[in-house]
């Protein structure tokens, strides 16, 4: 049995060790953990065990570890005593741009937004940088999967569910085309401090934007009919990608904040027999009846965010998931923030708990629900027999900020919890540490080059 902490944060990772983990070769038995399965309505397993084999969860229960047939675990299994730890499904960051952008200030690292207003043909997974420095940082926060959204335009593109470890984009892609993203026009005029345009001008713009969206989807529908009748028609990549969105097979992720936007978006989508999922959702409680009636889930993009209006209650964003859940609306929680902060996803869920969302629903909102929304519910999102062995071991209550992820498996492959940041940490600990030779940084240098300051390495990146 390996001790849990012996592997963790040993501080000797170097870049070369940040390689994608190999496939699982031997079974793994994790025992004596508190297991939060994220299965709806399922109890927390105290003193739980889990057996991972071939990248899947093959056994799960409480007390003494048992194989699926009831017998003892396989003899070749790696056994981990996880006493004192909590086990959860790997977190899923939703509506994120992880992998599409590295540094906001450098255009060359930004692949989020395609040119033009309608580009459903672009798909996020195609441009994910598997070697992005942001991905390992997110993993340290327990984020093992990400539903990545292209940005911009009216129809932004295709969301892709990716796993956050692999050599190539092909390996990363779980659900390459998880649904089409629409950014819904504002339905109410913005106040004066947002714009120099008056209400009438804004209304005109809104109508034009809506007309354009309608026209695009009408044309797509026509195209769909025509293609079915005549396969030799010239291909239109844009409409081709929409075919199974138009018939409701794949969902539409509709970015909408106000109650008016949400209402009009749902009515529009339902009228066209499409399957909407709301992203944003700040005004959703006012139209929760419609959300429930049409069975529309809401991805709350950010709990740790400011209220929408100056006159909103101070905790309006904190209580949003709880208010929706209380009405029976299915809720996923995203950060709504820059992808560099995806590691804080669980803190958003925790804040929702502080302001009324039941604990297990909060966990579900960053695991089960997002997996189901993008059609990966059969594989990911819960700890259950037959599902992917994508799990986290936390050294405490997973919702606490102080808690860290200690070990993580993605499809049974153990993920190295290291990053550019842990490498820098180790490096500079050596500068100050007793074994590091006590190098010090020079202070004032009246003349000539700094005598003591020895920048042994140039700044990480200076290109601008």
């Amino acid at each position, binding site marked *: 049995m390996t001790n849990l902490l012996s592997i963790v944060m040993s501080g000797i990772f170097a870049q070369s060790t940040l390689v994608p983990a190999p496939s699982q070769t031997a079974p793994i038995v994790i025992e004596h953990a508190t297991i939060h399965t994220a299965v709806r309505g399922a109890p927390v397993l105290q003193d739980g065990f889990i057996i991972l084999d071939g990248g899947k969860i093959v056994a799960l229960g409480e007390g003494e570890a048992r194989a699926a047939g009831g017998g003892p675990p396989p003899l070749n299994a790696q056994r981990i005593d996880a006493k004192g730890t909590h086990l959860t499904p790997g977190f899923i960051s939703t509506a994120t741009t992880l992998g599409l952008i590295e540094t906001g200030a450098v255009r060359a690292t930004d692949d989020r937004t395609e040119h033009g207003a309608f580009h459903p043909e672009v798909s996020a997974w195609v441009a994910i940088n598997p070697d992005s420095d942001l991905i390992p940082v997110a993993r340290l926060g327990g984020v093992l999967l990400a539903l990545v959204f292209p940005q911009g335009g009216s129809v932004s593109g295709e969301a892709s569910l990716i796993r956050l470890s692999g050599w190539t984009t092909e390996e990363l892609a779980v659900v390459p085309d998880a649904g089409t993203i629409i950014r819904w026009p504002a339905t109410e005029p*913005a106040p004066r401090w947002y714009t120099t345009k008056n209400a009438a001008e804004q209304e005109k713009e809104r109508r034009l934007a809506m007309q354009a969206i309608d026209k695009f989807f009408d044309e797509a529908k026509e195209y769909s009919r025509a293609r079915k009748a005549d396969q030799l028609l010239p291909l239109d990549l844009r409409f081709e990608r929409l075919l199974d969105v138009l018939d409701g097979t794949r969902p539409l992720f509709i970015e909408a904040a106000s109650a008016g936007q949400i209402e009009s978006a749902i009515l529009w989508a339902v009228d066209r027999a499409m399957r909407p999922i709301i992203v944003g959702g700040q005004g959703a409680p006012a139209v929760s009846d419609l959300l429930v009636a049409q069975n529309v889930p809401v991805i709350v993009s950010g709990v740790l965010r400011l209220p929408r209006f100056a006159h909103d209650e101070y905790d309006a964003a904190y209580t949003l998931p709880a208010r929706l859940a209380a009405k029976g609306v299915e809720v996923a929680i995203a950060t709504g923030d820059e992808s*560099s902060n995806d590691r804080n996803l669980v803190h958003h869920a925790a804040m929702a708990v502080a302001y009324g969302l039941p604990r297990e629903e909060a966990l579900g909102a960053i695991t089960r629900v997002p997996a189901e929304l993008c059609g990966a519910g059969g594989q990911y999102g819960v700890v259950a027999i037959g599902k992917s062995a994508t799990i986290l071991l936390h050294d405490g209550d997973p919702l606490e900020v102080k808690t860290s992820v200690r070990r993580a498996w993605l499809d049974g492959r153990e993920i190295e919890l290291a990053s550019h940041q842990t490498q820098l940490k180790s490096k500079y600990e050596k500068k100050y540490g007793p074994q590091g030779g006590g190098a010090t940084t020079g202070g004032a240098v009246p003349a000539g080059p700094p005598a003591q300051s020895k920048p042994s390495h140039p700044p990480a990146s200076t290109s601008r």
Partner: protein
Amino acid sequence: MPPAVNASFRALILSFLVAPSAFAQSPPVNGIRPSDVRWDAIEHATVYSSPEVRIDDATILMRDGWIDAVGPVAQVTIPAGATIHDGRGMFIYAGFIEPALLVDSAALARTATSQVGAHWNPNVTPQIVVTDLPPISTGLRQELRALGFAVAAAYPDSGIFRGRGAILLLGETPAGTRTIGEGAGQFVSFGRRASDGRPRGGDEERAPIYPNSLMGAVALLRQTMLDARWRADSTAVWKSHPVGNDPPVAATALDALALAIDGKERVLFDATTESDALRAGGLAKEFGLNASILGSGNEFRNLNEIAALRLPIIVPLEFPSAPDLSSPRLSEGVSLADLKSWAVAPSNAARLLCAGASISLTTTRLKSRNEFPSRVREARDAGLSESQLIAALTTAPASLLGLSDTLGTIAPGRMANLTISNGPIFGDESRITKVWVAGREYDTTTPGDAPFESEFSRAGRFSIALSDGTQRILVIDPKKRTINFESTKADGSKQSTGATHVALDRWRGGFLVEGDALGLSGPVRCSLRIDGDRIQIESKSGNGLLVAFTATPVVDEVATAVEPVKPASNRALRPEVPVTFPFGDFGLASIPARETVIFRGATVWTSTDDGILLDSDVIVQDGIITQVGKDLAVPSNARVIDCAGRHLTPGLIDCHSHTGVDGSVNEWTEACTSEVRINDVIDATDVGWYRELAGGVTCVNQLHGSANPIGGQNSVVKLKWGSPVAEWPAGAAKPGIKFALGENVVRPAGRYPQTRMGVEAFLRDHFRSAQEYRRTQKDFAANGDGRIPPRIDLELEALAEILEGKRVIHCHSYRQDEILMLIRLADEFGFRVATFQHVLEGYKVADAIAKHGAGASCFSDWWAYKMEVMDAIPWAGAMMQSQGVVVSFNSDSDELARHLNLEAAKAVKYGNLPPTRALEFVTINPAKQIGVGERTGSIAAGKDADLALWSGDPLSPLSLCEQTWVEGTKRFDRIEDLAVRDSREALRQQLITAIYKPKEAEKDPKKPVPEAADAPAPKPAGLRERMLASKDEIFLDLWRRGIDIRSASQAGDCGCSEIAR
């Protein structure tokens, strides 16, 4: 003005009036000289000789433009030569005075800027005089007279020091338009547009010009006034010591301020917000100015403070229109503050008077000047009495302009300015009929205007009996301007004939109709008029036959006579609402009181070496923590707060915030802006404060943005939500200033510095400059007799204070090289940097920071948003602490600031700090860094009672902040917050109901919204225009996504997104 002056003044005017040829510049008369006799008497009128004195059946005797006598008819003898006017039915008031007429002066200001002696800054043109502009148009004079005005004080409207005003007569001919008095004083602004109060950054069509921010505008005002004083002083020295002193260079701009700076000339401040009014009051006090304020109309939002300035206020009557609530979805975005503003605004003037302010009314800022009479009536309905209104239009502005002996009342010796109405002047049916200006009468009604202003006052169905015994029904719809005649044929079928050429006024009208409609033949021309409840019709057919008909209301039908359209009383429409401070949704009806409190049985996180005290009591008296311990005796009158299961921590402190800065947080038009002060622009009404209190924050370091290597002076405030802004600054705080290094400061294109090398040189040069500045001052102090004194330069003052250790630097920084650079520079100049802000690579040089003695204030885990933050690591805080650096975690974000406790918890997660040490990152450590460590930041006897009470472990995201106390006053209480939500919602609904009128629902939204009035003219795409356009796009997208624009500036960007790249 003393009588003697008045007499000579009058003589001056007489000389003009009696002998027109005295106009030296007048052209020769083409024809016979006009006699121009002005000798009039109005008798039998109702005369208000002053706001309070009404004389019935009175006579006014005027000659040559002046009033000779006024009194009851019996007491005034009319000389034989006077023209007698029958004043029966007339209500006569002293001619109204418009105290702030703004005249477009942009072109003149531009010219003045390029002339000899101009100020370097195009916003400073005090030398221009409104009389240098083309005279105000006849149309505008007519418009003002129609509103009852005989005199106006006109001012140039462009820039910050806008120039000098003049008092103009609003008559015609050279005599009737001349200026009177000595001038109307200097007009200054805070750099916002006079029309709508939006900020403007210098000339919008050219490159950005200092200042772009409100704090920059205040700094420019302050420096310019100091310069004006210095100019006067140094000129005096030079006059007495012409030898050895350089003669002064031409400085017409500064010379123009000489009187104002001595308090000898009035200074009118354009205060387009209620907080600008307070700013004006502050500057008036600082420089001893003879100040008055052109208000915003929103003074009710901070009434008592503004009234307490004891400065005359000119009050505009622009009231917010009711928000569009035709759909419940629209009301989502309407705040209680919007609704309350709508309800309260008409009572603004009344409230000011009631609070003891001296007010005058103005037509300025009205979207349409013609709305003035209806606005005045709304103000009347909202509480202003008739005499108060008269005073605000006559005696008050006269006194404001220093012309009480000439204007404002009807008395012998006053100018013959009269405003005449056909009824009590503010009555709903009254109209102004005549205005007299300097003894000359002007008709205010425009031809064809009266009495046709209203709709035909009868409508509905009337029956007409024709001579053949048949009957016709006359149907009148004055709204549609239609007249129809209905007849019933023998077979019972109905026939309707419509009239054409329908013209209707209130009582009469005319139309053309086919004759058979009236039993006649051919087209018949008809006129009609009201006769009691009947209508008389006179018809003239083609053959010239005149036939008269009488139409009587159809009795068996409901004759719907149109009610005379009368605006419903606004008092009824706009309900009484409680006025709070801040005026927004979370304001308070009164300032919360300081309390004696015992927090009983809490888990106390002391942020001292005592660490956590279990089950302990904390006693607060007079705003101070007096005792900390177990089982303490309850002081008398103490509120006991049961803290079982709860945790008490010091109030959290945010070492880097841009919350509550009025206007831009960056004065980015120059690379060194050490003269600007956040202190000048603290906004105590920003809802961000309340939200931060709800996260346990009690003290904040408000910093200038990071656009400049040398930014502005910071402000440290305690969050005293509900208290006047003057009480917010934390007195103990060390004066500070924001510096910035790295990417942000080199971003503005075409500006030095563009590199980190340039930043170093720039800073060194400025510190040397400050050294030399002080040396010169000391030299002068030692032997300055007979020498021109050195000029006070607020920019260098602040830098000199840094060198003297009186002011400390909070420096935005990221990369290790730039951190070391500033340390070297500081060591070279012998001062210590207080904090490196952000300092994301500080962990790489933590030993050097510790050795220098600077603090480090960083984000817990922000990174990746630009190149210089790619090496940020979340362990930085703990690592720097381990090297002996005092470390804090800050927000730099209105959002992050609401859960600084969770940021602190990250120091446990990343770096394994003990929880108590981690909490210190947001309590005592930032307190030390901003110089308030002796007063706040920990729980110990003797310290300020700044406390936060949590439902559990403060480092847990599952705990809630329940109460926040600042200096012994409770400023947030979650229970109370929850409790008032329902009543706030109820008030909202009450106001929405009051506004929502179904009939207007279709009409209102289509009504062009006010902003549309001035259609956006295509302008050359100047830099600022382009910036605004792109900003518009960005902001509108944020709105679409439901993101509060306050959160638009991301942490680390310090509001730099607004800078041109």
